[in-house]
């Protein structure tokens, strides 16, 4: 991860090799654990954290190869590292009762794609704020806006996957793929707002400031869907509010 900070080709090659080695050894460990337990290690939260680490590193590496976003790979590896450290240091933390509805193979993919999506969209929001600062200073925002828009596309792709994986899971767990549960409704609103943005930006009619504000504010809707929902009166019956 530290090596990513350097741009020289040799260092890049070494860091590539290290990331791959990390991914391979983690996969190997999970396979061994699977054989040892004689069941897929997906039951406790500690075990799901292993999968988080593995998949998030893979996604980080693939997207790094595709888009050369070193910062995202660094973020992905950091997240993976945090999950691993939690597993080493406090394997039992939050190893709380995983209610029956959560014990599913969909749990890991559903959560991971959302973690990745929120990372990208959060980053786009940050770029939005940087862009707005540049507007104020009179600097050209074309480059920042361009990167932000590409990042929104990638983040939106993962957001779509999260929503759809959630729908497929819901069919298995609750009998229907869409029940207008408040969390689902807010997730749909978030998704819709980003679609609106993607269409608006195709026309490029307005000033960059307008788009930058839109990017920044879209993320607030995302935050409502993520945290705010626990405080909304409409959401008290939600199946996604797990705190008692």
């Amino acid at each position, binding site marked *: 991860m530290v090596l990513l900070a350097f741009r020289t080709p040799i260092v890049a090659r070494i860091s590539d090799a290290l990331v791959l080695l990390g991914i391979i050894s983690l996969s190997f460990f999970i396979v061994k654990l699977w054989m040892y337990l004689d069941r897929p290690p997906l039951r406790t939260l500690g075990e799901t954290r292993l999968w988080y680490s593995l998949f998030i590193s893979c996604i980080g590496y693939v997207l790094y190869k595709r888009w050369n976003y070193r910062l995202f790979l660094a973020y992905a590896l950091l997240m993976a590292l945090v999950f691993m450290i939690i597993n080493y240091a406090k394997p039992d933390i939050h190893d709380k009762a995983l209610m029956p509805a959560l*014990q599913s193979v969909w749990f890991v993919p559903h959560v991971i794609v959302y973690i990745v999506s929120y990372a990208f969209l959060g980053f786009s929001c940050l770029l939005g704020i940087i862009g707005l600062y540049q507007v104020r200073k009179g600097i050209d925002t074309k480059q920042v806006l361009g990167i932000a828009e590409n990042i929104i596309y990638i983040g939106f792709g993962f957001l779509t996957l999260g929503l759809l994986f959630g729908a497929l899971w819901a069919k298995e767990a609750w009998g*229907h793929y*869409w029940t207008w549960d408040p969390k689902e409704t807010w997730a749909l*609103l978030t998704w819709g*707002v980003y679609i609106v943005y993607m269409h608006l930006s195709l026309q490029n009619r*307005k000033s960059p400031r307008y788009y930058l504000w839109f990017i920044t504010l879209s993320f607030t809707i995302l935050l409502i869907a993520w945290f705010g929902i626990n405080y909304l009166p*409409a959401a008290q019956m939600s199946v996604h509010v797990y705190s008692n």
Partner: protein
Amino acid sequence: MKSPSRTMWEQPWGYAEAFAIPVALFLGAAGFEFVTGKAAPTISFPTNVVILLVFINAIILLHAASAKNTIIRWFSSIPASIGALTFFLAVSLIMALVPQQEHPHSLFLFYNVTSSWLYYVATGYLLIVLGMVSVRRLLPVSKKNIGFFLNHLGLWITITAATFGAGDIEKYTMSVREGATEWRVMNANNTIQELDFAIQLKDFEIEEYPSKIGFVDMRSGDVLEKNRKKAIFELDTIHGIRFNEYVITIKTYYPTSMFYVQDYFPLSDIGATQSYYIEVTDTKRNKIYSDWIGAASMSQPAKYLVLPDSIAIVALQPEAKKFSSRIRLYTKEGSTTDTIVEVNKPITCNSYTIYQTGYDENMGRWSEISIFELVRDPWLPIVYVGIFMMIAGALYIIWFGRTSKTKENYVESI
């Protein structure tokens, strides 16, 4: 955007019209509901198929007409798309903010949005616009359109199948007693129907998590708090449990046990409960207390350990880890199948999907009743086609991102 030289409704149409039309539709739908005072009817087979075919034909005809008519062509433009999507999102926002009720007496557009006229108008308008957009880019078939096609047509198929198919979904509950065989089910209106297969409940089982241990104020009955965190702890035999000056070590844990005279004994009869023999060290007063604590069950009261200052240490009601039913399915054709139904692991029989939903909660672990939900959704395969198209579309977006090409392609085709 409205240009200053143009008044509204004058061509070419832009964003003003894109939002005016939804507002008009909103008022129309709300007015219609206000006058009739009724929810929109649900349509089911074969009416829904007929309406769907007319609907698809209408979209194709509109598309054909759009070659000559600029107003009709406008409906597949970006402003119209944004207007239609915003309309649909605005209706969703009502649902997101107002707690929804199952059977409101009036104002369906607020309290039961999905059965209101407004919901159908917004969905219908979105589907017309999205349908026209999809058809427009469908031909000629080309590689550069593939992402567009997957995302737009996928979404159209998903929403269309979900909306038109909603009336054909059958949903029943069935409760079966251990040993009994049941073929009657109940729908949402509590009417009983018979199925063409039967379920025999062989065994219903619940696995529980170890009881959590909590500190309770005996005067108020509330759980104590520290830094706004409730003093409830999970079984931790290695590190022990710490709260303020108290350290609990668990000496014995029985997942199933019965209390007799002054001790718990490991028994698994009906009404057996979880119990712990704990040792509590009061580090401030340098005292040690020890006793049994046990969770309450249908046949036994809870047992707790009382500390000074009216604090009690209790074992809380255990939470279910897994519940499952061992069943045998009998069909009319005479076949029998033995299987297990579990939460998150439904099974399918004669086009019904059978879900484990509940049990007799008063009896808890000794429930002799298992409750199933049976769902039949003939439109599900079509919805899944749409969903998998969108998954492929999402992967396409992730891989290709917002390349300058995306933009050029799009603009040139408008």
